């Protein structure tokens, strides 16, 4: 414990240095903007800003990108509450009761509860990250290729299981992502696979063009032609204080959302989205007045908003400690670290303590920045929504092209983004989740290498995966999940994934 506090002190010495604080502030502001603007989620935001971090050192870069991530979680609630438009996917649940509160004249209170809940959850979950990541990293030093193979496979299966909608479709998307990740030079034999003479494809499909295409461009293709211009509610500063009763009603949901969000964040999947859904369902179940949900229940705002912020910290645990991304956003963050010559994994905390602890400390600073930013400046951020969409989407598109090109200085990446954009657009139309594709692209080379190294270790015997306790456990849990999803399929009932899919479409 004493060592942790000492390390944290080192971290704060890094995080409180003016340049790092400045980048944390910039990241939080950009993140809030990204969260407020419909169509630009945290994933696209982080991907687009990645090239701008090239000139920075790794600590400043990761601090800024993380600021964008949790800033987007804060910002997403604003449009949900004031316009019933989720700025990003994790704020879907906040739309229901947040907007209902706004219509009752409690928009300010809803915003304040969302901001305070996000602050509490963000700060508490960083403690969890701080305490859990180092022992997990120490444990992961025992991992060899079979354990990594099992872990990566487990991660993909959990992502498919946790995705909303059909698991078969999610698994198909994961397989598609893994297949796309096979493009490029085979690491073991040096063969060029599916590159068709395009030298730039030798390194494979970059995660940034794939992510920006599937999430950013696809969103623009889907929304550009639709009429927009809903009414924007604009609360006054003096209306931001919730009543004593509203505070009382929000304390327990914030606490539960924090714990739940962090735990779900650690598990692979689109954690911030799932956590807000599960939190909403939990609060409704525990409430003495479930009939109030959907009509402005305070718990329906406090719980999901706390959960989605807490999940962002949880998602950093496997990324930093194991070097394994738990979802598409950590995957892009992982790529960002690699661009800066940092290899996340068990040795990161030992080899680069300043980066790790500086990052942890910056999250405390970032949460305070966001609380200060979001409440008094909410009117300013809402004004962004007054920019007509016909001007906004070409700008976002130009930023996407700029961001993707700048990563490698290659137009091939722009083409990849474009193809992925069309693919993402079509898949959205066909009701497929695209998050497993991004994770598949990132994990494919790792899984393949781990599989082939494991087989080389065992003289080609697959029993190695079941003889080692960690890999055997992970594979057994993965198998149980498949069986569980088959059970639901056989019963043909609406399980929680199907209900979540309906909620995301606004049908519940």
């Amino acid at each position: 414990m004493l060592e942790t506090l000492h390390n944290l002190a080192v971290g704060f010495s890094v995080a409180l240095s003016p340049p790092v604080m400045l980048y944390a502030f910039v990241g939080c502001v950009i993140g809030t903007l990204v969260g407020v603007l419909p169509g630009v989620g945290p994933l696209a935001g982080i991907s687009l800003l990645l090239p701008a971090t090239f000139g920075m050192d790794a600590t400043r870069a990761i601090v800024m990108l993380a600021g964008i991530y949790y800033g987007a979680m804060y910002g997403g609630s604003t449009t949900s509450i004031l316009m019933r438009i989720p700025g990003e996917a994790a704020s879907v649940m906040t739309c229901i009761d947040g907007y209902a509160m706004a219509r009752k004249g409690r928009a300010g209170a809803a915003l304040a509860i969302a901001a305070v809940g996000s602050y509490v959850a963000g700060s508490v979950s960083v403690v969890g990250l701080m305490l859990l990541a180092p022992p997990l990293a120490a444990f992961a030093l025992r991992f060899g290729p079979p354990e990594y193979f099992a872990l990566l496979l487990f991660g993909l299966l959990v992502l498919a299981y946790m995705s909303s909608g059909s698991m078969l479709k999610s698994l198909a998307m994961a397989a598609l992502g893994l297949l796309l990740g096979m493009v490029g030079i085979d690491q073991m034999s040096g063969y060029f696979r599916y590159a068709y003479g395009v030298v730039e494809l030798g390194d494979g499909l970059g995660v940034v063009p794939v992510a920006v295409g599937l999430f950013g461009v696809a969103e623009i293709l889907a929304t550009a032609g639709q009429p927009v211009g809903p009414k924007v509610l604009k609360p006054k500063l003096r209306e931001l204080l919730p009543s004593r009763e509203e505070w009382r009603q929000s304390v327990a949901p914030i606490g539960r959302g924090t714990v739940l969000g962090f735990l779900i964040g650690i598990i692979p999947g689109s954690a911030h989205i799932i956590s807000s859904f599960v939190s909403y369902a939990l609060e409704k179940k525990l409430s003495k007045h479930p009939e109030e949900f959907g009509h402005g229940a305070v718990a329906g705002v406090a719980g999901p908003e706390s959960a989605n912020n807490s999940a962002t910290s949880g998602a950093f645990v496997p990324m930093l400690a194991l070097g394994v991304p738990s979802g598409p956003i950590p995957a892009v963050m992982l790529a960002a670290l690699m661009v800066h010559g940092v290899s996340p994994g068990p040795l990161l905390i030992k080899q680069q303590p300043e980066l790790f602890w500086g990052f942890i400390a910056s999250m405390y600073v970032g949460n305070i920045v966001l609380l200060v930013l979001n409440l008094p400046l909410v009117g300013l951020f809402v004004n962004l929504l007054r920019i007509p969409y016909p001007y906004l989407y070409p700008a976002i598109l130009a930023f996407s092209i700029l961001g993707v090109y700048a990563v490698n200085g290659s137009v091939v990446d722009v083409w990849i983004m474009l193809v992925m954009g069309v693919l993402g657009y079509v898949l959205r139309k066909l009701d497929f989740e695209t998050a497993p594709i991004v994770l598949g692209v990132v994990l494919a080379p790792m899984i393949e290498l781990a599989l082939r190294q494991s087989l080389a270790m065992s003289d080609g015997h697959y029993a190695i995966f079941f003889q080692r306790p960690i890999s055997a456990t992970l594979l057994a849990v993965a198998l149980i999940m498949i069986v569980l999803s088959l059970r639901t399929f056989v019963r043909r009932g609406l399980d929680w994934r199907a209900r979540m899919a309906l909620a995301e479409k606004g049908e519940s």
Partner: protein
Amino acid sequence: MLTIDRAAGAALAVFALVVLWESRRLPLGSLSNPGPAYMPVGLAVLLLFGGIGIAVLGSGSAPLSSLGFRGEWRHTVAIFAACAFCAVGLERLGYRLTIFVALLFLLFVVERKGAVPSLVFAAGFAAGTFLLFDTLLRVPLPRGPLGL
């Protein structure tokens, strides 16, 4: 009836078959010593079964004709064309000129905004982002033969 899931499942299965066909050029290896085609082939087989499964179970999904492309296709094609132009023009014409033309096209032609606002927005955005990223943040952006 051709439903959304049936069409999607069939498309995935066809893609998997294409991957299997393309993989024939690469050594497959063996079960105990996988070659470079081993994992792609395995994944393609998985995707093939997944696609077939989605198609077979997809009789209850909405009909394919219910997909609403009608109101969007004009924008979709225009955005695709603008992006494709950027990919072709970025290194040939330079960042500023390419983005200027693409934005002007989207605003003036597609969105039918006035000539002056479209020109001002396109020129301001192209020059402003170049200044921010290339000059201030030192992210190298292409200039093209015209120095733009």
